[in-house]
């Protein structure tokens, strides 16, 4: 019988037996796919990691931006852009009045927001349980070129842009972030598409000498 209440939505796509499972934020996740040296090498070419365990919080509505500001959250001014809070958490403005907030590694901002005082009129909670990915590497643009029809190069993306597009036929939210000294892309999709999208992206990553790696390769908090 399953004892942990949470399991990563990508679990179905992970190979049985050959990977190391662990629990992060109360969620069962794969913490290592291959040896650390090989994961380092994969990351160089095209690394893909599961970040679905990071806490997420969402609100929408005409007063959502104001309410977030009242909670001390940095709110991106432009629709389809993102901002970082001081604690490293991300705030994505998905259109004019909808927001997705994701905890920094080790953070618990989303839990605090969920427990915050009753939301005023015009602020609606949006539950977020998306599958969440981190991507990086020399060949990441080649992956994008295969799964997405729009231009996702750094030059085209801009600095703080959030893109809502399709990857291999699945709606995703994408942003680019320079973090811990490297360029990374973050991708979120509906959890039910998580295994499919993981398989597609990991398969392409393998073709470029990359592949799945543990999240510790990206966030030192989980090494």
């Amino acid at each position: 019988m399953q004892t942990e209440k949470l399991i990563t939505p990508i679990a179905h796509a992970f190979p049985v037996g050959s990977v190391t499972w662990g629990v992060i934020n109360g969620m069962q996740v794969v913490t290592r796919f291959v040896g650390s040296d090989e994961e380092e090498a994969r990351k160089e070419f095209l690394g893909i990691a599961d970040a679905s365990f990071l806490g997420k919080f969402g609100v929408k509505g005409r007063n959502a931006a104001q309410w977030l500001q009242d909670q001390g959250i940095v709110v991106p001014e432009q629709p389809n852009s993102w901002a970082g809070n001081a604690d490293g958490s991300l705030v994505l403005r998905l259109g004019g009045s909808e927001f997705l907030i994701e905890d920094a590694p080790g953070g618990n901002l989303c839990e605090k927001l969920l427990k915050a005082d009753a939301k005023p009129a015009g602020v609606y909670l949006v539950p977020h349980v998306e599958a969440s990915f981190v991507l990086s590497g020399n060949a990441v643009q080649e992956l994008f070129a295969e799964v997405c029809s729009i231009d996702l190069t750094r030059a085209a993306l801009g600095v703080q842009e959030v893109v809502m597009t399709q990857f291999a036929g699945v709606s995703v939210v994408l942003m680019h972030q320079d973090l811990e000294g490297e360029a990374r892309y973050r991708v979120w999709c509906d959890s039910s598409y998580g295994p499919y999208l993981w398989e597609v992206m990991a398969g392409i990553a393998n073709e470029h000498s990359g592949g799945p790696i543990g999240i510790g390769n990206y966030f030192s908090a989980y090494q």
Partner: protein
Amino acid sequence: MSARLARQKGEWVNRASTIKFSFEGKEFSGFEGDSITSALWASGEQVLGRSFKYHRPRGILSLANHDINVMVTDGMDTNIRGDVVPVAAGMALAAVNTDGGVKKDRSRLIDSISPLLPVGFYYKAFHTPKKMFPFWENIIRKAAGLGVVNFNYPRILKRKLHAHCDVLVIGGGATGLSAAYEAGKSGLRVVLVDENAQLGGSLGFDWGGSQESANLLQELLAKLESLPNVSLIAGAYAAGYYPDHLIPVVTREGITKVRAGSVIMASGAFEQPPVFRNNDIPGVMLGSAAQRLLHRYSVKPFSNGVVFTANDYGYRVAQDLLEAGIKLAAVVDLRSDAKDGPLAAQLARRGVKTIAGSCIYEVQANADKTGVKSVTVTEYDEKTNEALTRDKVTLECDGVAMCAGWAPAANLLYQAGTAMRYDYGVHQFVPNRLPAGIFAAGRVNGVYELAQKVQDGARAAAQALLHIGLDVPELPSVQPSTRAQSHAYPIVPHPKGKNFVDFDEDIQVKDFINAAKEGFDNIELMKRFTTVGMGPSQGKHSNMNAIRILARVRGVPVEQIGTTTSRPFFHPTPIGHLGGRGFHPHRLTPLHDVNHKLGAVFTDVGAWKRAAYYKVAGLGVADTVLAEVEAVRTKAGIIDSSSFGKIEVHGPDAALFLERFFTGNYISQAVGSSRYTMLLDESGVVVDDGLAHRLAEDLFYLSSGTSNAAAVYREMQRWQQIWQLDIGLVNVTGAYAAINVAGPLARQVLSGLVNISLDDSALPAQSIRETEIAGVPVRLIRVAFVSDSTYELHIPTPQAAFVWERVMGAGQALGLKPFGTDAQRLLRLEMGHAMPGIDTDGLTNPYEINAQHAIGMDKPDFIGKRSLQIIAKRPVKKTLVAFALEAGYAGEMPFECNLVIRQGEIEGRVTSIAYSGTIGRVIGFAYVAPEHSALGSRFQIRADSGALVNATVVSSQFLAMQK
């Protein structure tokens, strides 16, 4: 004997690497960089293929993929275009479309009876008796055709990529390279594609006896090398034009869909052959083909040739041939004014005579018809376009280079919507009005002089940059050449024909004349009747001559004839490229692995994979499903319903929104209760149904079927844009999993898990409560879709597996069994629930399914109300009824969509049907005429075999019929 010339600057072949291969069972060798054709020609092979219809021997025509004279198979792949496909070590090649080999093709006899086989002969000769047509068709198909499809060809799926650039340049000749350089100087992303293996276009072969072109090519490439923002891609053809400057670029590796800010078409022109008798004999080739052989592959096209020209280009070809040491018997120029010009004088100084105002009347083949023996030259009357045969001269030679003019490679320009005009200076169609962001330059624009092409490329680049918002100075326009580069009518009639216009389809001049006589005198009709331009090279070498002939036949200017429609793709593209490595998105419920462990067999429901049933060893599918149903009816069953649509409607206007969106009443709905929802479209057709659960005054939680969930949410967003109510819509389909526990013991299974009472009084039918299971928040809903006693648990997706295990654990001792969608459909049928999408179609209105109870016509408005008001005044045309077959019926089982028949006429159709073990009868829903819908009415269903099966209208309360 080798026809290979000494090593020369710019040649494409790598002489350090020898390639061995075979053709028609004979061993050959070539060099790395050779095409199949060039390697064979260098080895002295001239008969490289057989023509499509008459099986005439064929050699080189264009050497540029503008014809398909050389089509070979390697046993695995077929229709390989020898002119452009590199020869590879170990290839075992054979020509396609032969019976007994390319030299001894038994079908060559067809050529001798060709007068009996004009275009369209099979339509005329064999259309009656009709029953014999398949017989003749079989013979004709075997006699005429290309390669044989290999059904064992491996499934090779190529990646399909997307790319983006600011300026896309199509064509890597002087014009394209110049344009890429000028555009690239801006620092923007510039991509240049060219179909040839190396860049340079005609700079690489059209030298005209000097090194000017070759030097310019080196200069341009060197300049471009300094621009890292410019990507030069050879071996890549722009295959078509789609809106917003989307251009698929095809390489051997696959397709890249390039989206460009602006596009420069520097695609050049196709050389067009003059038309004269036996212009297809091996050794007779286009002048540019001879140049390609000479300068790309260092191969002699022939040893002692004749140049037949109708433009100045022929003199450049002649100079190149002479430079390569090839003897020229003469230059025959169709133009009477050519003899006194400087070009003829230059040749005269090299000892080559020019025979002006003359034509090659016919070519004589050598004894075994593998090459040219001689040509017959006569005077040509340019006014009447006739050969004057009173004085014939025969010139001994072993090859002919033909130069008559060009047709713009404007395929993509046409596809982009360019309006073309016929320019009488250059005698060519040129762009007249270009679509925004598309620019044409070089030969396709009617510009031929080398310096002008470079200038025109730069001019187009400046315009392309201006189009995408750069502030650059506009450069002066370059006018089309004022000297005709093409002859207005390079056609030489001959009473014996075999003067080919379209080499793909063996179409001669007389075929066009006859087609016009039969009334096919419109270019599109003529194309279809004669099949000109319909072969694999799609008219690249034939359409322009066809237009000129038709114009002459009809006595109208060329521009009145127009051109045929140009469609993608520019060259035939493998299906594996087009299909590519496809993506097949699918959704898994959070319980997918749990279901899998339980033996689930999955089925596709929309994008979702759902458990259809759970395998039981030793039990067939039907019995397995019946056992799952029995478990629900007698004990308890559990089903993963996570794919159901789930939407939250928040806000003070939430109830009002539902009132407008659905047909029912929701303002009065109590918190904690559930109500049926029916969605219509604006024409009153039933679209979807589901339940609305009120969790708070300002919060409704909607659940609906799997298939329509996304569409319903989109529709809600659309209407909210119109209504602008004070609400918030949240699609939580993916955020919540759903588990149904159904059956008489369902309450018992759950009662120990939740901290609320499940008694009917505390949780009556159609109600919702928020509770917890082992600390996991749960929305617990009492529904009655598959059983009167059903509890639906909605839980956060990541915790679904945890809760499922808890419920399974609690139900183990009570006989709780998982059931799938097959059992679910039967269970709902037994419950008498009609389902939109299954029991309705795209025209069904609520009155036809007896859903009046769900319609609040007293409401101010709802989607479809106005239509329903109109529909309500009309008689109902069909009615959905519940039916049962005779008790104990053991005959052929009817299926869904089988027709209801009454007195030989179609009255309706079956929408749902299944054998219910619970009831012991076959039950279902069907549409019948309203006058036959009363309980007890009888009708007949026509099963697949045609057998009529008796059925009786019964109450939809099927379970009341239980044994």
